[in-house]
């Protein structure tokens, strides 16, 4: 199993370690629920060094990325970031990723740890024009500093004032006299930052943040936080067989430009979607978990993709992939939990409002 550069730090903190995407990662340090609350109310940090990073550069970098990525990058200014997908011809998702634009001839792609090899192979197989693709995943560590106090911590720990840094933008700066790429991004629905740096610098940043009183947060809370903020997880709400449109993520798909999967997604949009990722609330006791079937009468009409009973929420909640027309808000369905059926209701999947900083005006918006 692989380990990140912060593995020894997790062991020293007595984290509960688990296997995730081929890496030995901290599930929690003390408690998932307490770490969840910490991010919502104050600040915490995640080791996300397992994430993959690729550099795409060359004269044709922009048209090349544009032809693979569902969102528009041509219109981004240097220092801006776009969220989107690599899709198959049939619209299924190879991965969801962030594309950081350094300038017209250079991009940084941040991909899911579990997909590093397949993404690299996918991009390489489609290489076109004057571009080079480099996998720099092993050269970078990454720390996600998240929560309403994240900006304050950056000022206090590193004398770095992020006030001018808009949501979904980044800056190449120096912290501790070392180069750090710092972006105002995250996966929690809170304000926050992601810091990319060399292995040695990442270890130093982590230690300084710990010394500044920032508590570490594990993958357990990372998942409950993204779930509560209606953010998808690859392999659950999106996958090779679930398209971004089915997942309700059309904001990150620009159907007006050509990219791999555009035709299939256009057809899917025009033919009306046959199934959708929805929010579910359980009417009664119990917890819905991934893989549990959903019924309308005797007909199976879907499956749970992620489910939790969060201490911050009154109801047991889930995301589920549901066949039309059963996906409509307020529809009463049933979930099967250990051979027993329980009533559920389709609800808005934004279980909680996001509190990220607003995007600046010049940010692309999907039309």
């Amino acid at each position, binding site marked *: 199993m692989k380990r990140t550069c912060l593995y020894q730090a997790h062991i020293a903190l007595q984290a*509960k370690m688990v296997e995730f995407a081929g890496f030995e990662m901290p*599930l*929690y340090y003390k*408690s*998932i*629920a307490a770490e969840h609350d910490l991010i919502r109310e104050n600040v915490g940090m995640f080791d996300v060094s397992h994430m993959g990073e690729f550099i795409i550069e060359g004269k044709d970098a922009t048209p090349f990325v544009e032809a693979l990525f569902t969102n528009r990058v041509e219109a981004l200014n240097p220092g801006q970031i776009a969220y989107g997908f690599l899709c198959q011809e049939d619209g299924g998702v190879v991965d969801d990723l962030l594309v950081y634009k350094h300038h017209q001839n250079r991009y940084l792609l941040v991909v899911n740890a579990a997909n590093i090899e397949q993404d690299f192979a996918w991009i390489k197989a489609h290489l076109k024009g004057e571009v080079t693709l480099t996998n720099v995943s092993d050269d970078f560590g990454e720390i996600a500093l998240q929560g309403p106090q994240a900006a304050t911590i950056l000022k206090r720990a590193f004398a770095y004032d992020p006030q001018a840094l808009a949501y979904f933008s980044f800056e190449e700066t120096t912290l501790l006299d070392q180069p750090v790429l710092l972006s105002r991004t995250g996966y929690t629905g809170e304000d926050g930052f992601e810091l990319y740096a060399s292995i040695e610098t990442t270890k130093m940043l982590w230690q300084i943040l710990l010394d500044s009183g920032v508590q570490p947060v594990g993958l*357990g809370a990372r998942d*409950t936080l993204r779930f509560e903020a209606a953010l998808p997880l690859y392999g659950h709400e999106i996958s090779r067989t679930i398209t971004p449109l089915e997942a309700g993520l059309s904001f990150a798909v620009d159907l007006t430009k050509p990219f791999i999967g555009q035709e299939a997604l256009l057809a899917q949009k025009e033919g009306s979607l046959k199934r959708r990722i929805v929010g579910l609330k359980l009417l009664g*006791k*119990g*917890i819905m*978990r991934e893989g549990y079937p959903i019924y309308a009468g005797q007909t199976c009409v879907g499956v749970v993709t992620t489910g*939790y*009973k*969060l*201490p911050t929420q009154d109801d*047991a909640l889930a995301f589920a992939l549901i066949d039309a027309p059963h996906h409509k808000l307020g529809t009463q369905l049933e979930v099967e939990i*250990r051979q027993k059926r329980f009533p559920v209701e389709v609800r808005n999947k934004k279980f909680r409002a996001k509190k990220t900083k607003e995007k600046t005006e010049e940010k692309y918006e999907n039309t």
Partner: protein
Amino acid sequence: MKTPKGLYYAETHEWVKVEDGFGYVGISDYAQHSLGEVVYVELPEENDHVTKDTEFGAVESVKAASDLMAPVSGVVVAINDDLEDSPELINEDPYENWMIKVELEDPSEIERLMNAEEYSAFCEE
């Protein structure tokens, strides 16, 4: 990890405390610690019958659901109602907070469970 003497333990990490022909069943300290925060406990109803080595309910942490396996067979004569509203009691004291009380139908089943010493060694493997 606490492993009180006098209880009998199953490989699936449930314990049984025998009193007057009844068995109180719960999960071990090792089990609650592995699970993390318990947020829901699903139990059978009174008068249901449970069978050794088959599922009698589930205990759910924030992260996942785990089956509860009956370490003994018999009719459920009582369930611990407190766990419905306060599942976290399992984390706070897994031995004080039993889950079901079973009328033991085959006392020899107890002999096939581990004692505290054997169970401690089993958990360290």
